[in-house]
């Protein structure tokens, strides 16, 4: 291992900066080089991606109609005030 190489331990702490596009060009290159040859880190990054994707499935879809009707009533009061 070259002293400039990224270790697995370092990579797991940089994964968010990597996904957020916040790494310096040099670190980004070190990250890409590592991930290109380390299947275990690739697995780790995939799990982080899956975690993000899973969190994105938690949102509720529609507004409770009762709440919406109440708010429209609030709106009409405000409109007429």
């Amino acid at each position, binding site marked *: *291992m070259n002293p400039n190489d990224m*270790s*697995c*331990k*370092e990579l*797991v*702490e940089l*994964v*968010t*900066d990597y996904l*957020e596009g*916040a790494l310096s060009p040099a670190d980004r290159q070190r990250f890409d080089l590592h991930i290109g040859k380390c*299947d*275990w*880190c690739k*697995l*780790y990054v995939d*799990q*982080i991606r*899956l*975690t*993000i*994707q*899973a*969190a*994105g*499935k*938690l*949102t*509720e*879809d*529609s*507004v409770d109609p009762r*709440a*919406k009707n*109440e*708010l*429209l009533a*609030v*709106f*009409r009061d*405000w*409109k007429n005030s």
Partner: protein
Amino acid sequence: MATQRTGDLGAKAPSMSASIVFRPIPEELELLSALRRRDESAFSRLVTAHHTSLMRVARMYVGSQAVAEEVVQETWLGVLKGLDRFEGRCTLKTWIFQILVNRARTRGEREGRMIPFSAMFDAQSEPGEPAVDPSQFNEHDPEWPGGWVSQPRDWGKTPEQSLLSREFRALVQAGIDTLPPNQKEVITLRDVQGWTSEEVCNVLGVSETNQRVLLHRARSKVRQALDRYFAAK
């Protein structure tokens, strides 16, 4: 708006919002003028777009669904009353959530709850736990110092479908629920609600860097929670 509000949040304005001049998109200007004309269908669209997110965000700060409903309703009223004063220096969405977060925080504090307050977070002075248990890495391996001791547990095939299963969703939610309040706040807005980092920084009054550190800690811990689930399976 963001720069004005951060005053009452007790934090410095995020550098991003200070340097970039915000230009509203035409749809937003149309919506705003319809709202100012007291157009009910415009308000109805706004409610449809944001109400469930407002409820979810409010629940992070207050103790019950009922109180969250009150806070959200007060927020909508605050929005209506403030429309004519809204200066359009940020998006309507950011402005609405700034109102909500301020109100919900105040309410939560009054309830004596532990309130997430990312604006106060300082990554430098609050070191976090490592993303992965250090025992998973072999520090002294002559060839690969800091490399994995063994392959991270394989989660197997987790198709799109299983992400939606009730069991898996409950698991992800439980992982998020056990996070420290600051981390929970950021991961909920970023990954659950799908906001951009800029929106999160503007609404919470947190710097880009601190936002990213909180997000990193949160995601790492939720991944660990999922990993423990696959271990037990």
